[in-house]
C-alpha cells in the first residue's frame, strides 16, 4: 500500500474536523441534558433533523433577504428549541420520577412521532440549502481545495464551546445549572425554581441540536432518516468523552471525526466497525468516559 499524499491527508483530516464540530454541537446538548436532567434523550437526533428542515423552510421564505441563511438558521433552531420546551413542560417533566427505562422509551416514542410528522410535512424528497453567498467557493491549502464554509464551521465550533464554557462557569445561571447537576433537592430547598431551570437546560440542549441541523444543511442533504443516523454518533461521542462532561464531549467529537475521516482511508469497509469497537472499549475500561466522572446515583 502506497502512502497517501500528505496534502490529501490534511484535507481529509480537516473534513473530519468539520464533522467533529457538527457532532460537538449536537452531542454537547445531549450531554448537557443528561448531566443535569439525567435523561438520555433519543429525540435529540430528531431535534437536529427538524433544525435542518426548519432552516430549509425559512431559507425559502426569506428569498434574497440580506443574511438570509443566518436568519434561517437562528429562527429554525429557535423553533426547535421552543418545541423542546413544549415537550419538556408537558410530557417529559412527568417522567422524571419514573424509571430510566420509561424516560428512554418515551424519548424513543418521540423519535418515531417526530420522524413521521416531518415526513407528513416535507415528504420524502431530499432538500439542500445553498451556502451563504460570501462563503461560496474554496480556499487552496497545499494545492488542495477546501470549502470556505467548512472553515467557518471549524472556527465556529470552538467559539460556541467557549461561550458555553463561559456561561457555565461565570454566570449565575451557570452556577445554578452546575448545582442542579450535583443535588437538585438541596438547590430547590435553597429557593431556586428547579423546574424552570430544567426547562432552560432543555431549551439550550434542543437549541444546540437545532443549530447543528441548521448549520449542516448546506453541506449534507436533508433527508428522512438523518435523525436516526446522527443520534447513534452523538451517543458514541458522549460515551467516549464521558456522559455529562463538557470537555469530554469536545474530545469525543474530535476522536470520532478523525476516526471516520482517516479510518475510511485505511480500512474503507471497517471504519464503521472500528468506531463501535472504540465505544465498547471505552465503556469496558472506563464506563464514565475519558474525561467524565463516575456517577454516584
Amino acid at each position, binding site marked *: 500500500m502506497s502512502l497517501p499524499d500528505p496534502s490529501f491527508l490534511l484535507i481529509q483530516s480537516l473534513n473530519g474536523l468539520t464533522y467533529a464540530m457538527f457532532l460537538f454541537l449536537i452531542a454537547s446538548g445531549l450531554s448537557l441534558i443528561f448531566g443535569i436532567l439525567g435523561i*438520555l434523550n433519543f429525540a435529540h437526533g430528531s431535534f437536529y433533523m427538524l433544525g435542518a428542515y426548519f432552516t430549509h423552510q425559512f431559507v425559502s421564505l426569506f428569498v434574497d433577504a440580506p443574511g438570509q441563511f443566518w436568519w434561517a438558521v437562528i429562527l429554525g433552531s429557535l423553533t426547535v428549541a421552543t418545541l423542546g420546551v413544549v415537550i419538556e413542560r408537558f*410530557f417529559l417533566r*412527568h*417522567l422524571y420520577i*419514573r424509571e*430510566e*427505562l*420509561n424516560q*428512554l*422509551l*418515551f424519548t*424513543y*416514542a*418521540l*423519535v*418515531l*412521532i417526530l*420522524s*413521521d*410528522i416531518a*415526513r*407528513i410535512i416535507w415528504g420524502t424528497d431530499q432538500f439542500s440549502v445553498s451556502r451563504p453567498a460570501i462563503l461560496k467557493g474554496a480556499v487552496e491549502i497545499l494545492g488542495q481545495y477546501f470549502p470556505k464554509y467548512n472553515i467557518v464551521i471549524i472556527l465556529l465550533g470552538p467559539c460556541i464551546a467557549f461561550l458555553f464554557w463561559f456561561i457555565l462557569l461565570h454566570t449565575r445561571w451557570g452556577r445554578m445549572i452546575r448545582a442542579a447537576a450535583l443535588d437538585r433537592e438541596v438547590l430547590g430547598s435553597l429557593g431556586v425554581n428547579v423546574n424552570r431551570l430544567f426547562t432552560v437546560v432543555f431549551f439550550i440542549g434542543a437549541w444546540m441540536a437545532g443549530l447543528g441541523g441548521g448549520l449542516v444543511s448546506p453541506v449534507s442533504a436533508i433527508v428522512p432518516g438523518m435523525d*436516526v443516523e446522527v443520534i*447513534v454518533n452523538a*451517543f*458514541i461521542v458522549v*460515551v467516549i468523552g464521558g*456522559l455529562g462532561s463538557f470537555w469530554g464531549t469536545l474530545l469525543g467529537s474530535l476522536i470520532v471525526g478523525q476516526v471516520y475521516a482517516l479510518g475510511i482511508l485505511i480500512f474503507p*469497509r*471497517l471504519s*464503521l*466497525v472500528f468506531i*463501535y*469497537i472504540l*465505544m*465498547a472499549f471505552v*465503556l*469496558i475500561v472506563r*464506563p*464514565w468516559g475519558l474525561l467524565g466522572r463516575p456517577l454516584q446515583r
Partner: protein
Amino acid sequence: MSRHRWFLILILVLIALIPLSGSRYYVFLGTDILIFGLFAVSLNLLLGYTGLVSFGQAAYFGIGAYSCALLMKRVSLVFPLAFVTAGAFGAIAALIIGFFCVRLTKIYFAMLTLAFSQIVWALAFKWNSLTGGDTGFIGIPFPQYLDSRTRYYYFTFAVVALKIINSPFGRILTTIRENPERTEFIGINVKLFQLVAFMISGFFSAIAGALFGVFNHSVFPDTLFWPASAEVLIMAILGGMYSFFGPVVGAAVLLYLRMQVATYTQYWPLILGTILAVLLFFFPGGIVGFVQTRFAVLRGSR
C-alpha cells in the same frame, strides 16, 4: 392458580387451531407473532426478571438468522443441526458480550449492549462476501418436511411451547431484580446469574432469529440495526414486562395492528410512537398488568 393454568391451556389450544381456519393470512401472521413472541419473551428474561435493559437484543436475533442461513446454504448443514447450532452461536456471542456487560449497571449496561449490537450490525452490513451486505442474504431454503406455511407454523409453535416452561431459575432472577444486594447476601452470585440469564436470552433470541430467517427465506442487516432492538423492547413493555406471557401479548398486538394499519396509512411509526407514549404515561404495567389490576379491583369490590 389453577384457573390461570386452564386459561393458558385454552389459549394454547386456540393458537394450535389457527391453521384450521384455512386462512393464509392468519397462518402467516400467527407464525410472525410466535417468532416475535419468543424473541420478546427471551428479551424479557433480562428486562422483567433481572432488570437489565438490553438495548442490543437484535444482535442475537440476527446472529441466529444469519448463522442458520449460512450453515444451510454455505456448508449444506441439515436444518435441525443448523437450527440448534444457530442457537448455540447466539448463546456463545451472548456469553462473550455479556461477560463485559454485566459488570456495568443501568444506562451504561444499555449503552454497552447497544455498542456490541452495532458492531455485529456493522459486520453484517459491510462483510459482503459472507453476508451479502446491504442487499441481504436471500434464498434460504425451507427444509423439505416443513415445506408448507401450516407445517412451519406448527414447527414454530412447538419450539415456542417448549421454551415456555416456568422454572425456579426465573424466581431467582426476579429476586435479583428486586434487590441485588440482598440476593448477594443469601449466597447467590448475582453477576454470574445475570450472565447466565444473558446467555439463555441470547440463545432463545437466536432461535427466534433462525426461525425468522427460514420463514422469510432471507435475512437483511436491518434485522440487527438498533431500531429493531427498540421494537422488541416495545413489544415486551406493551404486553407487560412483569408477567411471563406479557411480551407474547405485546408482540401479538403490535404485529396485528401493524398489519391492519398498513392497509390504511404508511405512517405506522407515528401510530407506534403514540401508542408507546400513551402506554408509558397511563399503563406502565402494559396490557397484562392493566388487565390484572382491573381484575384485582373487581374481585376486591365484591
